[in-house]
């Protein structure tokens, strides 16, 4: 009966102070821009919100003194306006920020020769998931890359996923000012495309000595526990050839809490990137400016055949129709098999799930 009772329970530690540090997230590659730099502040554990850092001066500078200024396009998001501006392989770049009477900078980092992606492909895979009574089912994405020339290469895959999905119901009617009226375009918000940055950091240190290519390296797994694979799914893989320091930084973020429930944890620590305060080296600036030679490849996959999806579906609410005035507007209705039904607006309007009804330019069906 050793650990029989080994137990995990919620516990609120008494943390009496929080630090507010500048967080930098920026990138330049040899691919076309615009390049963006995101500036934000750390937040306390009990109220995690993105706190954009506004009205900063942000400049990317190369080793021959050329600069390009980034302008704030959204709160805390700074972008290069000139889309002709491109990073050049072999050049060195650094990021400079002026904010709140402080100057921050990264070191100069060489933009490395990109490594070409040979292939991205998928395999159907089942996985056991502890929290669900059933196993998950989905696609594992793999990458092959070849002709890696450097003795040691540090590769980082930044992935962006786009998927097409439908709402549960078309908008047949709308309830406005105590009356139910037919909706002019029932399919208006029925189909959406949603694009996300894959919140996973996948990196790899490649040593040429053993092989000059990468074969079947697992990148990402998408399963049937969400709407992502319900119609058609696309993954854009950006392969960046980065420097050792950035690799180390990303590796630390990727592994930060690999073992925090285990008996044997290492001492946690502050993950430092390549940004520093020019005037005060003791100020803790977080995040990093990434300079990498990049190549991209996109892949499409369709709904896996015969898959049952296990996400939270909307059910039609037939009884609710009798007291529509109690619902938060807009109130939509759909004519279902058993009659008129209502539901939460999110079940009618795919945009409320973060999608866009505009089909992306790259999308092929």
């Amino acid at each position, binding site marked *: 009966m050793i650990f029989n009772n080994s137990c995990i329970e919620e516990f609120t530690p008494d943390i009496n102070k929080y630090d507010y540090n500048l967080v930098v997230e920026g990138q330049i590659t040899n691919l076309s821009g615009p390049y963006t730099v995101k500036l934000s502040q750390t937040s306390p554990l009990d109220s995690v919100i993105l706190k954009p850092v506004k009205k900063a001066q942000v400049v990317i500078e190369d080793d021959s003194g050329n600069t390009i200024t980034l302008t704030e396009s959204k709160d805390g998001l700074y972008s290069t306006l000139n889309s002709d501006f491109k990073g050049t392989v072999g050049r060195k770049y650094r990021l400079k920020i002026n904010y709140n009477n402080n100057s921050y900078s990264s070191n100069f980092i060489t933009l490395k020769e990109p490594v070409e992606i040979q292939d991205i492909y998928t395999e159907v895979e089942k996985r056991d998931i502890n929290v669900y009574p059933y196993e998950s089912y989905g696609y594992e994405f793999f990458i092959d890359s070849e002709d890696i020339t450097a003795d040691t290469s540090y590769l980082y895959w930044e992935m962006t996923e786009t998927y097409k999905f439908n709402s549960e119901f078309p908008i047949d009617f709308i309830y406005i000012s105590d009356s139910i009226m037919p909706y002019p375009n029932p399919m208006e918000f029925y189909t959406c495309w949603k694009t996300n940055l894959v919140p996973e950091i996948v990196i790899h240190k490649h040593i040429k000595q053993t092989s000059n290519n990468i074969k079947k390296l697992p990148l990402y797994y998408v399963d049937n526990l969400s709407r992502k694979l319900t119609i058609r799914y696309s993954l854009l893989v950006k392969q960046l050839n980065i420097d050792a320091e950035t690799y180390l930084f990303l590796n630390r973020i990727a592994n930060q809490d690999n073992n925090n429930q285990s008996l044997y944890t290492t001492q946690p620590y*502050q993950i430092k990137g390549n940004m520093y305060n020019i005037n005060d080296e003791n100020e803790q600036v977080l995040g990093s400016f990434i300079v990498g030679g990049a190549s991209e490849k996109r892949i499409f996959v369709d709904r896996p055949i015969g898959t049952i999806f296990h996400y939270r579906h909307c059910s039609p609410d037939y009884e609710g129709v009798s007291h529509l005035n109690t619902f938060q507007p807009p109130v939509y209705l759909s004519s279902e098999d058993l009659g008129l039904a209502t539901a939460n607006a999110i079940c009618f309007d795919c945009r409320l799930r973060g999608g866009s009804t505009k089909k992306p330019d790259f999308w092929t069906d």
Partner: protein
Amino acid sequence: MIFKINKLIPQFIFLILTVFVFNFTSFGQKIKINNIEKYNNLKWEDWVLKIEKDYKLNFYYNPDSIPNFTVIIKNDSTLFKNQLNQILQPFKIKASIDQKGNVFLLKNHEIKTNIFSSFYKKEKYSTDNNNSVGKYLITKNEIITKTKIVGDKNKKVTGDLTVTGVVKDFYKKTIISGATIFISELNKALYSDENGEFSINIKKGEYIFILESPESRQEKYKVTIYSSGRLDFYLETNLISIDEVVISSNQYHNVKSNQMGFENISAKLIEIIPSVLGERDIIKVSLLLPGIQSVGEGSAGINVRGSPADQNIFYLNHIPIYNTSHFFGFFTSVNSDAIDNLTIYKSNIPAEYGGKLSSVININAKTGDLKKFKASGGINPITGRLMIEGPLKKDKGSFLIAARSTYSDWILKFIQNEDISNSKIKFADGIVNISYEINQNNHLKLTGYYSFDKVNFAERNKYDYQNKGLSFSLKHFFNKKLKTEFFIIHSEYSSTDENYEDPSYPFKQNFKINHDELKIKNSYNINSDHLLVFGFNSIYYTLDKGSYIPLNLQLHLPQINFGISKALENGIFLNHEWNISPSISLLTGVRYNIYSKLGPEKVFKYEKNSVINESSIIDTVNYSNNKIIKTYQNPDIRISGKYIINEDFSVKVGYNSIHQYTYMLSNTIAISPFYKWQLSDYHIKPMSGQQLTVGFYSNFLNNNYEFSFETYYKKIKNLIQFKDGANITFNKYIETDILQGDLDSYGFEFMLKKKFGKLNGWINYTFSNAQNIVKNPILENNINYGLPYNADYDKPHAFNLVANYEIVKRFSASANFVYSTGRPITYPTGVYYYSGVRVFNYTKRNEYRIPDYVRLDISFKIEGNLRSKKLIHGTWIFSVYNLLGRNNAYAIFFKNENGLIKSYKLSIFANPVVSLSYNFNLGNYENK
């Protein structure tokens, strides 16, 4: 009529000896005491005192066999002996009275005292050249009067004489190490060594020797020394009182010994103190002593006075054990059955030991019985144990074999936690101990040790490791003053870990260390005031630093071979013990270490004053096999002094400096089952430590209570610390992940022991502070921004209570209570997102603490019956670990759940752990 005479009656404590000092008139068997009712209504002990005083009688009996009842005797003018028998009859005690007025009270036995009287006459002045004459009287189960004569009465001698001898168990004839031999007249205490031997320089005369060991009661002898010679003592163990746990070392230890920062735990104590799953564990017991801590349950290793776990060394009969844990540190890899005792030096480490800064822990294995074959064993929910011992040649040589093994991991299946119920454990260990006395001047000893663990932890980690060791020792006495001990020691530890924690990148790693040692230790008794111990030891380390083998072959990941590593550590030492006066003594020791890191090795040289990493390499030097890469030479100094203020109170001061050339490669907070040892090399400097200790010691209430207060300050330089985010698994050039800093540690320890009686035990409180600092002009070479931070295991307040209570014979209870401040922890001071990934921002290391630790354990022990004729004697032990069921925190961790940060507490033993174990030995209780 009452005799009111005898001005010569000495103090009661010396009564026992008066038999031979004064010539008593003979009372004989026919003694009669008139008006005996005048003594009525006194308590037994007072009654005896009064009768002894008034009638010049001397009572001999075992105080435990007769309770302190109220004496009432009717004056019926019968013989005193009959009266005695009558009142003692309920206790099955029979009285015998000899002609000298000695009253012997023995269980079920009457002595034919007329035989004794002739025995006295014949033996009293007999001497036999240089051989001891043990003048003890033996009945079936008791030893009575004790006097000893050494040497030849007629020999003309001047100056110092040397008396050597051995302390043995009277029944088993096994040696007793760590017994105190206190010589009242000289106010001097010495100890029997690990072979039970002692040696003293002394002048001709009569002395009172008071012997005591953790296993036995105090015994007093009158020793008459005529010339140099041999003096052996046979102490009665175990039989005095069943279940009496004699705690700690002994009474003279505390106040009068030269030692400080020293602890001794006997095997008996381990038996009764409650333990997890009933598995007796000597190292877990040591955690109840002041100044000894661990990170938490499930961590290997102990932390002594603020030092990390790798600064301790564990010797099993001189074999160093590089991994002392079974099953994640829940158990110790040495079977407690085979352990005689354990001694810990927390400070004032003798100069014969070097190479570990914090403590030396000697685990002394039992020596086999010299008379007859014996078997014993036990079973509990986890392990089964068996021990066999017996003579190889009667009274000359013996063997002991002890083995222990897990017999099942069925118990894990009952566990709710999936990780655990999916785990498989298997471990075993064994000890073989052979001793042989070739002749009086040459003794041989051979000890073999083996342990292994195979743990499959939820298919995530497969740990597989083993210790092997062998020690051979030959002791030779050149003469009475000089003896030499010669040791050959081999120890090896090897370990592998198959790691599936990251399913995409599974790997396998391994490691092995070989330790080959030669040691010579000489002890030279110059005279009664000067003892020299000198010699050298030489250790040859060969490490296979192992390899990192990726197990996902599809990825073409390279295998990393870390290569081999060798070093030679030599030390010469000299210890001088000087008794300046009976109350002042001084111990000085020096040790000179010469350590050489040897090839083969490829050594990178890095740019000076820069962060050392791949890009700062300026040169590469290849060293061939056994070529010296770097030599470190360091002197160590050990000084301590003792001043006895009065019989019951002393002050001691000590200073130690030590160097350490090995370190543990482990950067987890609790030490995981897989770790490597490394050697100081071209880049990694040896760690050095200094400790200053002051202590006050007192015994009171008839020496039944022992109090000590010790305070220490410790400074360690070149402490090994790992850089933030160090990945020691893959790093072939470990110097790039190591930073060397300082450790400052101080504290004080209160300890109060009650040593005897139905209720015995101890209470201690320790205040301590241990802080690391790693500060460097180069920003990247700082830890915690160069500011001091609490050591991972720092627990400022620690309180332990251990109580054993004998309810009735055969049935006893024991409890311990443990409190300590929670260990330090680093909490995040902010959170942010990078590339969609949530990142915690940590700032100051170990700034916070996990909740305090509180635990109460209890155990009950029931001995089988005490019939003398039976096949098996059994003992049942029922124990409850963590009786309060308190969810003591082991760790606090944070998780991101649907965008919310949640914090959790992980406990290991969240409910009481109940166990029942059975121990047996063939034969009756005596054979235990």
